[in-house]
C-alpha cells in the first residue's frame, strides 16, 4: 500500500490539470473534480497510514524515489517522497481537513463566477502542500514551499477586480518571499558545507560534523528560522496574514489557518537536529513565539472584523507552536498544530457561514443574536471557541496548549518568563475568543440573517466541531489516564530526550492553574461584554486605553513602520531612477559630440575672408609654438 504514496500529491495535481485544460465543464463536474481529487487523495492517504501503522517500514521511514529531478556536477536533487511519523501527521491533516474544506467550498462558492478557477487553485495548493511535507530533500521542499506561496497569492487576490485584494496578495507573497530567500540561502550554505540537500543526510552530517553553538551552525539555523517566520507569520514578518483575509473564507481556513502557515513549524520540526546545534537560535525561536503569541492576542482583542480576529488568533496560536519548538518540544508543537488545524478551520468555516447569511457582512459589531437563527453554526462555533480558549478537559485545545506550556515549564530550554508569557497569552486568548462568540451569537440581533447553510456546509462544521473536542484525547497527560499515543508515534520520527523529571503532582497543579486561567478569561469576557458592557465602554473611551486599543487594532503599527521605512523609500528610490542614471552618462556623451559637431560646423561659414584669417592666425600660432 505504501507504494501508492505518490498518488497522494499526484491526485490533487491531476485535478488541477483537468480543471485548467479540461475543456468545457459543467459546474457539477467542476465540483466533482475539485472535491473528488482531494477526496481520493485523502482516501489514499488514509490507506497509506493504515499500512504504515500496521507494518511499519524499517527505521520508521518509507522513501519513494520517482525520478532524478536535477543532477548537475556535485548537485543532486531527487524527486522523492519521504514518509515518516511527522510527514504522515501533516499529510493526514492536509488531505482530510482539506477535503472537508473542499466540500464546504463546493456550496460556499457556488454563486461565484470564478468557481472553476477557485477549485483549480485549491487543488494546486493541496498538491504543493503535500509535496512540501513529503519532500525528502530541501530543493524539493522549496518547490512545495514556493508553490503554496503562489497559491496563497492567487487565492488572496481571487477577487481580482478589487485593487485592495491584489495589494494584499502581493504583500503576502513578497513578505513570505523575503523569508523564502533566507531559506534558500540556508539551503546554499548547507549544500556548500555538506554537498547534499537530502534532509536526513544533512541532519546526520550536521550533528556529526558541526559543534554545538558553532557560528556556521548558528547561521544555518537562523536562516531556516527566518524562512519559517515568513511563512508562519511570526513577528516581525507577521503583517501579511491579517490582510490575507481578503481571500474567500475557505481559503483562509485551509491556507491561512490549517496548513500553509504551519509550514514553518513543520520545517523547524523537521530540522530539529540542526536547531539543537544552535542554542542561541533555539532560544530565539522561543522568544519569537512568545512575543508573537502575546502581540497577536492583544491585537485580536481589538478587532471588529470577524476574520481579522481569527487571523490574529492564528498568528498567536502558531506562536505557541514556535514556543514549543524553541523549548525543544517539537511533539508538543505538532500536537498543537493538529488541534489548531481542527478548531481554526472550524472557526473560519463558521465565520464564513455567518457572513454568507448576512450579505457578506464581516463586522461583528453589526452581528449578534444569531444563535437562535443559525443553531448549527452557533453550537459548532462554540465548540471551536472553547477549544481555542482551551476550556479544561472537554476540548482538544486544552490538551495541546497544556502540553506546550508544561514542556515550557520543565524543559531546560524553557523557563519562568517564557511560561508566564504563554499563560498570559492563554488568558487573552480566552478573552478574545469569547468576546467574538458573544458579539456574533448572543445579544440583540442587529442584522437579519437570510437562508440557512445547506448540508455541504453544516456537515463539515459538525465534523470539525467533533474533532475540535476529541482530537485532544490522542495524547492524555499522566494526570488524566496517561495515554501518550501521539507522542510515542511521533517520537519514531524525532528521537528526543523526554526527561519527565517533574512529579505528577506538579503536572496536576500546572493543569489546574491553566484551567483557571482559561476559565477566568472566559468569565471576564462574559462580565465585560455581556454583563457590564457599559463599564467597558466608559473605560475604553478614556485616553490611554483608547490609544492602546488603536495600537492593538492596527497590529502594533508594524505596517506603518514598514510602510515608512521600507516600502516608501523603495518606491521613491525606484521612481527617482526610472529613467536610468547610467543612461544619462551615455546621453551626455552623445550630447557633447553633438555640441562639438554644431560648434565645428559653425566654423564652416563659406566666407573666404574668414578662412584666410583662420589660416593666417593658425600659421602664426604654429610658428610661435615651434620657436618657443
Amino acid at each position: 500500500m505504501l507504494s501508492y504514496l505518490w498518488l497522494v500529491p499526484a491526485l490533487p495535481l491531476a485535478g488541477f490539470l483537468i480543471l485548467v485544460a479540461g475543456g468545457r465543464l459543467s459546474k457539477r463536474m467542476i465540483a466533482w473534480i475539485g472535491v473528488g481529487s482531494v477526496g481520493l487523495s485523502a482516501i489514499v492517504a488514509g490507506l497509506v497510514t493504515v499500512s504504515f501503522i500496521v507494518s511499519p517500514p524499517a527505521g520508521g521511514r518509507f522513501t519513494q524515489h520517482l525520478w532524478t529531478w536535477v543532477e548537475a556536477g556535485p548537485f543532486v536533487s531527487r524527486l522523492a517522497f519521504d514518509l515518516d511519523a511527522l510527514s504522515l501527521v501533516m499529510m493526514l491533516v492536509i488531505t482530510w481537513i482539506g477535503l472537508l474544506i473542499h466540500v464546504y467550498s463546493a456550496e460556499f462558492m457556488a454563486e461565484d463566477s470564478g468557481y472553476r478557477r477557485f477549485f483549480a487553485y485549491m487543488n494546486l495548493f493541496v498538491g504543493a502542500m503535500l509535496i512540501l511535507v513529503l519532500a525528502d530533500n530541501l530543493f524539493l521542499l522549496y518547490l512545495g514551499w514556493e508553490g503554496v506561496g503562489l497559491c496563497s497569492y492567487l487565492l488572496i487576490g481571487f477577487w481580482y477586480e478589487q485593487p485592495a485584494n491584489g495589494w494584499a496578495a502581493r504583500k503576502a507573497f513578497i513578505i513570505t518571499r523575503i523569508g523564502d530567500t533566507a531559506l534558500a540561502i540556508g539551503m546554499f550554505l548547507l549544500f556548500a558545507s555538506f554537498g547534499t540537500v537530502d534532509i536526513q543526510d544533512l541532519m546526520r552530517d550536521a550533528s556529526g560534523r558541526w559543534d554545538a553553538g558553532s557560528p556556521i551552525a548558528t547561521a544555518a539555523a537562523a536562516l531556516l528560522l527566518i524562512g519559517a517566520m515568513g511563512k508562519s507569520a511570526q513577528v516581525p514578518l507577521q503583517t501579511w496574514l491579517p490582510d490575507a483575509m481578503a481571500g474567500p473564507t475557505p481559503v483562509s481556513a485551509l491556507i491561512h489557518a490549517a496548513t500553509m502557515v504551519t509550514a514553518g513549524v513543520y520545517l523547524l520540526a523537521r530540522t530539529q537536529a540542526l536547531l539543537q546545534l544552535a542554542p542561541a537560535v533555539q532560544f530565539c525561536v522561543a522568544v519569537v513565539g512568545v512575543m508573537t503569541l502575546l502581540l497577536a492576542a492583544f491585537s485580536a482583542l481589538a478587532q471588529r472584523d470577524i476574520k481579522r480576529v481569527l487571523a490574529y488568533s492564528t498568528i498567536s496560536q502558531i506562536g505557541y507552536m514556535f514556543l514549543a519548538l524553541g523549548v525543544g518540544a517539537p511533539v508538543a508543537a505538532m500536537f498543537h498544530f493538529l488541534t489548531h488545524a481542527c478548531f481554526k478551520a472550524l472557526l473560519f468555516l463558521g465565520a464564513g457561514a455567518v457572513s454568507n447569511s448576512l450579505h457578506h457582512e464581516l463586522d461583528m459589531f453589526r452581528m449578534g443574536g444569531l444563535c437562535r437563527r443559525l443553531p448549527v453554526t452557533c453550537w459548532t462555533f462554540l465548540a471551536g471557541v472553547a477549544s481555542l480558549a482551551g476550556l479544561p478537559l472537554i476540548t482538544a485545545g486544552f490538551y495541546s496548549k497544556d502540553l506546550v506550556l508544561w514542556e515550557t515549564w520543565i524543559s531546560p530550554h524553557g523557563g519562568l518568563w517564557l511560561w508566564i508569557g504563554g499563560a498570559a497569552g492563554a488568558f487573552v486568548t480566552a478573552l478574545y475568543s469569547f468576546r467574538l462568540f458573544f458579539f456574533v451569537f448572543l445579544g440583540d440581533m442587529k442584522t437579519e440573517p437570510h437562508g440557512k447553510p445547506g448540508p455541504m456546509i453544516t456537515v463539515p462544521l459538525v465534523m470539525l466541531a467533533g474533532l475540535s473536542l476529541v482530537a485532544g484525547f490522542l495524547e492524555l497527560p499522566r494526570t488524566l489516564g496517561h495515554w501518550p499515543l501521539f507522542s510515542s508515534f511521533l517520537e519514531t520520527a524525532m528521537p528526543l530526550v523526554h526527561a519527565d523529571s517533574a512529579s505528577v503532582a506538579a503536572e496536576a497543579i500546572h493543569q489546574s492553574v491553566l484551567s483557571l486561567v482559561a476559565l477566568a478569561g472566559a468569565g471576564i469576557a462574559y462580565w465585560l461584554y455581556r454583563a457590564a458592557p457599559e463599564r467597558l465602554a466608559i473605560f475604553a473611551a478614556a485616553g490611554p486605553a483608547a490609544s492602546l486599543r488603536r495600537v492593538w487594532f492596527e497590529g502594533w503599527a508594524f505596517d506603518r513602520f514598514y510602510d515608512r521605512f521600507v516600502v516608501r523609500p523603495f518606491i521613491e528610490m525606484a521612481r527617482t531612477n526610472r529613467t536610468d542614471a547610467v543612461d544619462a552618462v551615455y546621453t551626455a556623451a552623445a550630447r557633447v559630440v553633438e555640441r562639438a559637431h554644431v560648434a565645428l560646423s559653425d566654423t564652416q561659414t563659406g566666407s573666404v575672408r574668414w578662412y584666410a584669417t583662420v589660416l593666417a592666425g593658425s600659421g602664426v600660432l604654429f610658428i610661435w609654438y615651434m620657436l618657443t
Partner: protein
Amino acid sequence: MILLWLIIIPMAGACAAWWVERRGPQWPRWTALTCLGVELAVAGALWRDAALATPLSRPGTWAAEWNVAWIPSWGIRLHVAADGLSLSLLLLTAFLGIMSVVCSWTEIRERVGFFHFNLLWTLTGVIGVFLAMDLFLFFLFWEVMLIPMYLLIILWGHEGRLRAGYKFFLFTQAGSLLLLIALIALVFIQASQKGVWSFDYHDLLGAQITGAAGTWLMLGFFLAFAVKLPVFPFHTWLPDAHTEAPTAGSVILAGLLLKTGAYGLIRFAVPLFPEASRDFAPVAMFLGVVGILYGAMLAFAQTDLKRLVAYSSVSHLGFVLLGVYAGAHPAFEGAVMQMIAHGISTGALFMLVGALQERLHTRDLRHMGGLWGRIPVFGALLLFFAVASLGMPGLGNFIGEFLVLLGSFAPHAALTVAATAGIVLAAVYALVMVQYTVHGPAEPDRRVADLSRPMQWSLVSMALILVWLGLYPQPLLRMVGPAMGSERPMVVSAEEGSG
C-alpha cells in the same frame, strides 16, 4: 556538412522570402515558417543523436564538425562545429524563430517580404555565431546579425525607433570594434609564437597568453560580449531597442541576441584567457549581481510594459554572468539553463505584450487592467510567464537561477547572498506587472479579442517547454555540462574561494 546546411537553410530562406513577396503577403510568411521548421527538425535530429550518444559528448569532442580551408594564406578556415551547448542554443534559435514569424503574422503588414528577409538573415547570423569555430568566421557572423536587426528596429519599430536603432547600432558596433582589435592582436601574438597564421579556435586555445597582454585581450573580448549580454553598466541600449523593436525583433533580441553574448563569454572570453579570466571573475560576478538588482529595481519603476520586460532581462542575464564566472559546476549548468529558459519566458512575455499593444494601442500600464475578465486565455498565459519569470520552482527559470546560486555560494558567498535578494525584487516587478495588466478593475466598454489560435498554441508550447525544463531538466543539463569541462581549466575550488 550537415552544419553547413543549418546555415544555408535560413540564408536561402531569407532570399526566397523576399523573392516570393510578389505573389502576396502570405507567401513570405509561409516560406519563413517552412524553412525554420526544417531548421528545427534538423537541429532536433542532431540534438537527439548527441543526447543518445554514449559516452555523452566527452569533453573536447564535437557532436558534428565541418572544416575546410577558406583563405589559406592567413590561416582562415570554414570551420563549424557543434557540441551539446551549441546544439541546445540552435534548437532555441529555430524555435524562437518560428515563434517570431507567428507573432508577426498579423502585426507586420508592410514590406512583408523584406521583413522576413531581415528576420531570417539575423537568425542566420545567430546560428553562425553558435557554430563558428574559426574566429574570423565567428566575427563575420557576429557582424551579420547586426545590420538586419538594425533594419528590423528602424523600419518596423514603434515611435522612438530611429533613436533606439542608432543606439543599438553604436553600442554593439563599439563592442564589435573592441572584439576585432582583440581578435587580431590575439592572432598576431599566436602567429609570432608559433610562426603560423591561424584563426582556428583550437589553435588559439593553445596560445595561453598570460600577463598584461592576456588581461587586455580578455577585456576586449569581455567588453564586446558584455555589451551584448548586456552587463551593467553597458545595458542602456537594451531597454530602448527592446521597447521600440517590433514584437518579433524583441523576441529575437531578448531570446537570442543576448544569448550570443553569453555564448561568447562561455566559448571564447573565458577559455581563451583562463588566467586573466580567473583574476577578473570577482569583478564580473560583482557586475552580474549589480545587474540583477539594478535591472529588477528599474523594471519595477517602469510604466511602459515593454520596458518593464526589457529591464527584467537585464536582471535575469545577471544570473548568467554570475554563473559563467563562478567557475563551479552547478553554476555553469544553471547559467546555460537560465539562457534557454529566459529566452523562452521573455520571448513569450514580449509576444504577449505585442499582442496587447495590437489590441489596446498602448503599452502604458496605467491604461490597462482587468483584462482577466475580458480575455482569460491571455490573462492566464501572462500570469504563467510572469510567474515563470519570478523564478517559480517547477519551471525552467527556477532551475537556472538556483543552480547558479547553489554553485556560486561556495566560491563567493557574499555576492550570492546579494544575488538571492534579486528573487524578492523579481517577485515585486512580476506581480506588479500582473496587477496592472490582467487584475484590477476593468475599463468599461472596451472590447478586446482574446489571443488567436496560432498564438495560443505557440504560447502554450512555450509554457510546456518551461514545465519540462522545470520538472525534468536532466536531458538538457547532461547535454551542456561537458561544455564546461572541455574548456574550463579554471575551476575555482571551494576551499580556495570560501575561506
